[in-house]
């Protein structure tokens, strides 16, 4: 008999907040975009709307020691862990401390680009060797292992836009196989010059600066940054230490869709349908048990069309929340930030709406006005990537 996997703590660094209560409050507010242009060695051609963490001061959270050589992505992860799990690490003897599994698409691509830029400008022989350590994609995770003396696991998952969700899947596998009793798992992404240029060149960035998931006139997404991490543990372990169980990670599915449309998505939606069905199957529930769906949609027309088609077939009447309207497209962190939003909504017995209504491209039961008094037992969270990665998880409310 495999153990049940439960979520006992959630922590985040995001413009919506740093914990479920702050996120819950922010979901009731309009989107808070700001603008970015300069990135050290390079600048974007114009101020670009994005979801930045405006008040992020890592030194205030982490102290000054050891931060000089750490990049932005690492500081995001360390801060999320510090805020949510410092006490847990400090109260747990070193050998028993939880390992880490973090999903990120780019790691710190800004560090890699800066390392190269420094080498080109100042000479390859003069580049700072300490900066080299930041160029490996696992650097943020490993830096967290080092800071918190966590030896049980240091794993990084990088499946582009699905990285966060696949990190949860990896962690769940680790627990289900009995390799560990608890882990810290989540998703991370920094805003970088290269990610923004990449999204722009891919035709994915909204020129209007508005993220309107499933919108008939949606013109792209708005990039975001952040980190959301969770303590995943076996139910037995959580109960043995008296931990408060927020939710159960009841169903997990990931698959791949090799068929590609112009923007990368398979508009027929074979992979995303399979993932949603499989996640419910893994949870041992039927599709009708899902109280609401947290969509992957972020305003990129083909991606939204693919998911809308699949939802119309499988969940024609189920409410659909589109958190990316307020979180932005946080790439490898997105699905974990959506998971945090879903946990906040489950706790508040509601489904958060976008706020402003707009015409839809396809008939999706999208929630515009927040619905209260919705006691959700099961929630489905989607993450579908233009590269073919498809993933869904089912959360069971245990609060």
């Amino acid at each position, binding site marked *: 008999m*495999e153990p049940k996997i439960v979520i006992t703590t959630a922590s985040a660094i995001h413009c919506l907040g740093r914990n479920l209560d702050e996120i819950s409050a922010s979901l009731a507010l309009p989107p808070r975009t700001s603008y970015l242009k300069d990135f050290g060695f*390079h600048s974007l*051609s114009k101020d670009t709307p994005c979801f930045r963490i405006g008040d992020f001061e890592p030194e205030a959270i982490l102290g000054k020691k050891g931060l000089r050589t750490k990049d932005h992505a690492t500081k995001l992860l360390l801060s999320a862990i510090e805020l949510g799990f410092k006490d847990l690490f400090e109260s747990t003897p070193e050998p028993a401390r939880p*390992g880490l599994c973090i999903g990120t698409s*780019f*790691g710190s*691509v800004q560090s*890699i680009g800066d*390392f*190269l*830029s420094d*080498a*080109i400008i100042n000479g*390859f*022989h003069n*580049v700072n*060797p300490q900066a*080299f*350590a930041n*160029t*490996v*994609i*696992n*650097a943020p995770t*490993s*830096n967290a*292992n*080092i800071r918190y003396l*966590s*030896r*049980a*696991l*240091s*794993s*990084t*998952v*990088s*499946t*582009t836009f699905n990285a966060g969700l*696949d990190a949860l899947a*990896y962690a769940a*596998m680790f627990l289900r*196989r009995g*390799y560990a009793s608890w882990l810290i798992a989540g998703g991370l992404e920094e805003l970088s010059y*290269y990610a923004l*240029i*990449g*999204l722009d*060149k*891919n035709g994915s960035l909204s020129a209007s600066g508005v993220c309107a998931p499933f919108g008939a006139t949606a013109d792209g997404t708005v990039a975001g940054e952040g980190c959301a991490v969770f303590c995943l543990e076996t139910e037995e372990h959580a109960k043995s230490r008296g931990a408060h169980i927020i939710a159960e990670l009841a169903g997990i599915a990931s*698959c*791949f869709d*090799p068929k590609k449309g112009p923007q*990368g998505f398979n508009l027929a939606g*074979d*992979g995303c349908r399979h993932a949603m069905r499989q996640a419910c199957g893994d949870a041992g529930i039927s599709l009708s048990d899902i109280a609401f769906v947290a969509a992957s949609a972020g305003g990129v027309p083909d991606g939204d069309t693919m998911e809308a088609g699949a939802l119309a077939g499988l969940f024609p009447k189920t409410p659909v929340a589109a958190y990316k309207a307020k979180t932005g497209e946080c790439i490898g962190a997105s699905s974990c930030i959506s998971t945090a939003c879903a946990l906040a909504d489950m706790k508040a017995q509601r489904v958060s709406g976008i706020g402003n209504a707009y015409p839809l491209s396809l008939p999706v039961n999208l929630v515009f006005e927040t619905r209260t008094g919705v006691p959700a037992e099961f929630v489905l969270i989607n993450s579908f*990537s233009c*590269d*073919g*990665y498809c993933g869904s998880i089912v959360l069971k409310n245990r609060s």
Partner: protein
Amino acid sequence: MKNDRAVVTGLGVVSPIGTGVEAFWNAACKGTNGIAPLTSFDTTGFRTSVGAEVKDFSAGSFLAPSQVSSMGRSSQFAVAASKMALADAGLDIAKHDPYRTGVSFGTTMGEPQVLEEGIERLYGATGSADALPEDLPRKYPCGVISANVASALGACGPVIMIPTACAAGNYAIGYAHDLIRRGMADVVIAGGSDPISKIAFTGFNRLLATAKECCRPFDKNRDGMAVGEGAGSLVLESLSHAKKRGAKIYAEVLGYGLGCDAFKMTIPDPSGSGGILALTTALAHANIGPDAVDYVSAHGTGTEENDRTETLIIKTVLGERAKSVPVSSLKSMIGHTMGAASAIEAAACCLTMSHGVILPTINYRTPDPECDLDYVPNAARSASINIAVSNAYAFGGNTSSLVLGRFKG
């Protein structure tokens, strides 16, 4: 939860000493040195000018022209190695449920050449972002490597990229083994891939970690590693699936162990804490004791710190057995192929068991009192191997050990 056994039924290798299992194995048995002056870029002024490049690789032999131009070198290596592995396994994915076939790959740098080219263009004519290649976003993120393998093969099952630096191949194979053991896939293409890059070459040179002429692991006069490139791919299959189609079986993946030094980003914990944890865990998961280990394929980079620490790890975990277990480093021949290293080394372990030949550690001349094991110096050796352990360690203190066993029905 099926708990089926995971067996290896196909191998594919792209390496600095040969592309294809036969070319690689023949060269490795002869102790071929794949380390030579680099031709990919100018090395003037660096501590060393040598590295381990793949010399005989033609992407066009494995991919259509449009695929070649749409992929970075790491993806090209990964797809080529995986196609060779599937051919070796005699497996046609199209004849099986595509949702039961997965891909699990690892890498250190991903597709660094794509970013290098982009940034060099940025500093070229205009300095404008317009100079960045249009296809950069689709070619650069390391997740595209696994996606490219899955797309090329038509795999629709679980697909993952685990970029845990130079231990990534072992992580990927371990996860593939879990997918099969848990009944989530019948077949998983698992491996690792990395291209040579200016970033890695510059970084390791600036850390004074590169060898000046050749890589001599465990030798008293070792002076570093040689940056390399390549890919290794293994077809992992559930035993029931392999038996049903009458597949040849190279080996069984018995278990693996992971750990972390939690010490420094670029050097191992001299006490070997993470490596000891990984090896101890791997043996426990494989349900074997230290006395069952017949061979250790070492991480063996040729750096002062790694080789001393790895020797300590092996001695600590294997105890008295360590003195009689042959330990060799493939990196003496193919350099450090980064995220590909442990995948290629796992493939080599499978071949070691099936051929009864242990590959040598070449360039070994002077014993080091701190590295006092049997490193199979300079010449391959015949031996019957039932249990092989492959170690892989990485930046960030990531540690891993994989246990492979000769298949016994």
